[in-house]
């Protein structure tokens, strides 16, 4: 069972401020969800891993598409582009900085990270 202090630990890990009055509801909700999803513990069958539809390592989504790729390895290809042909410098800087909450002289501005 999840306790209030577990909720506080998770919130700390997730960099998320949780209002004091919400912690108990969250504890109850998360416990009931964990109880519900806990039924997958009944599964004891082991399965071999399935190749991703792409050679990307980001996802191991075992979709049915990836199964058909597995049957035909010639369809596996790299999805990463060559590290070449960069776009012109500063092309997107202005547009992106417009959405940055705090910036200065073309830099994103944050509070001091290292303290004395």
């Amino acid at each position, binding site marked *: 069972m999840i306790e209030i202090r*577990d909720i506080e630990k*998770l*919130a700390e*890990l*997730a*960099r*998320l*401020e*949780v*209002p004091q009055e*919400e912690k108990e509801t*969250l504890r109850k*909700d*998360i416990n*009931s*969800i*964990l109880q*519900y*999803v*806990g039924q*997958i*513990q009944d*599964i004891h*069958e*082991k*399965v071999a*891993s399935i190749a991703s*539809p792409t050679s*990307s390592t*980001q*996802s*191991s*989504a*075992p*979709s*049915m*598409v*990836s*199964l*058909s*790729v597995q049957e*035909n390895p010639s*369809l596996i*290809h790299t*999805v*990463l*582009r060559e590290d070449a042909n960069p776009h012109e410098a500063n092309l*997107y800087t202005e*547009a*992106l900085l*417009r*959405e*940055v*909450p*705090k910036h200065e002289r073309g830099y*994103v501005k*944050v*509070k*001091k990270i290292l*303290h004395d």
Partner: protein
Amino acid sequence: MIDVSTLTISNTHKHLTEGDFSVRELCQSYLDIIEKENPQIHAYLEVFDDVLAHADTAQARIDAKTHSILTGIPIAVKDNILIQGKKVSAASKILENYRATYNSTVASLLENEGVIFLGRTNMDEFAMGSSTQTSAYGITRNPLDTDRVPGGSSGGSAAAIAMNGALAALGSDTAGSVRQPASFCGCVGLKTTYGSVSRFGLIAMGSSLDQIGPLTKTVTDAEILFNTLRAHDVHDSQSISDVLYASTRDQKKISKKLTIGVPRHLLETEGLDQVVRANFDASVEKLISLGYEIKDITLPHIHYSLPTYYILMPGEVSSNLARFDGVKFGLLKEGDMLLEDYKKTRGLGFGKEVRRRILLGTYVLSTGYYDAYYNKAQNARHLITQDFVDGFKTVDSIITPTAPTPAFKIGEKTSDPIQMYLEDIFTVPANIAGIPALSVPSGFAEVEGKQLPLGLQFMSPPCREDILFSVGKDFLGEENA
């Protein structure tokens, strides 16, 4: 004044090219309806101010005969799909004033065809919900019974069509978020094959599950939009190559009459409304009378779909939403130090359901619990996927009701997350397995004197949307081209 209630993409195209009305007149009709209906329904969070300007550009293309079937078609776009320069918030406070710095691939594809974007539609915050009640900007009402929800998370998109405020709409579907609102609002909704439509410029929720799909009035319209949206995109690492798509589709041409599988054991699900069950049985009878062979099938692990989903999805949510830190874009709430900035920004910017899923995801991915939850769920995902592989060896399509209930009352199910999650029981397996699925209107349930729409869901093997369109059109009595 144009009677837009009878319009579809296909017949509107005919009217536009034959000069029955102009694109501007068409768009003005929609803007008038939105102005009248939206204050009560709240399908749109924002109506764009450049609709008529784009209408004139589209008209010029029609006049010059450089148009396509989608030129001048006014559609609504879910508030998690980026259109360059427009606000896009995922119905969250954390992105309240954010403007898209680039175009999503789907927006570019539709703009190239001359589609008109009417505005952005309401949704559950970050697409987390099944009723559009978790939006930070207020609820959306179901136009067919304003005491009820439109479904979700693409509830605004479905309601926009149902109130005659758009000819079609884009939504996103992670567990049923296109199909269930389509079912609640009497529309057609397509969840596309995983990897078939680019997610570049879609605000991510669960990246191994998310897909963009159309909501429309007819299956023919869904097919028209799908044919434009489906394209390989180097900007989405999961995008299916054209070669693979074609090779999968060539495996089997559609035979005269298809075999349809019914997983009857799934209908014993607790919480399946009797009126939905009766409607489903009537749909099966209808398919038999249309000449389809019906076959009972078993998907032995399918009851693990929802628990699997509620482990994988929160895990992916906790990673995907880590990018909202008050540094790069969106809301910033400052504290004494950088760590406090993060916590305050995220604590105040995210709503309750989003916070719940981030914490749950952090838990299932943490050392010590990873094997018990996340790895188990990955295992379950393989087994469920294999169930479909086996099932599709004997049938061409598998049917279920789209949702276990008709549209429910506003405020209902909000206090118990599990009750809300059960809304996805029939739709989530398609996301788990990455297969396409189509919800079509299958009739009505009379509840408290109101006629509430119900939906029938067809699923097919990956890349076989053609099967869904064929049987869907047949079911609705649309002409099969």
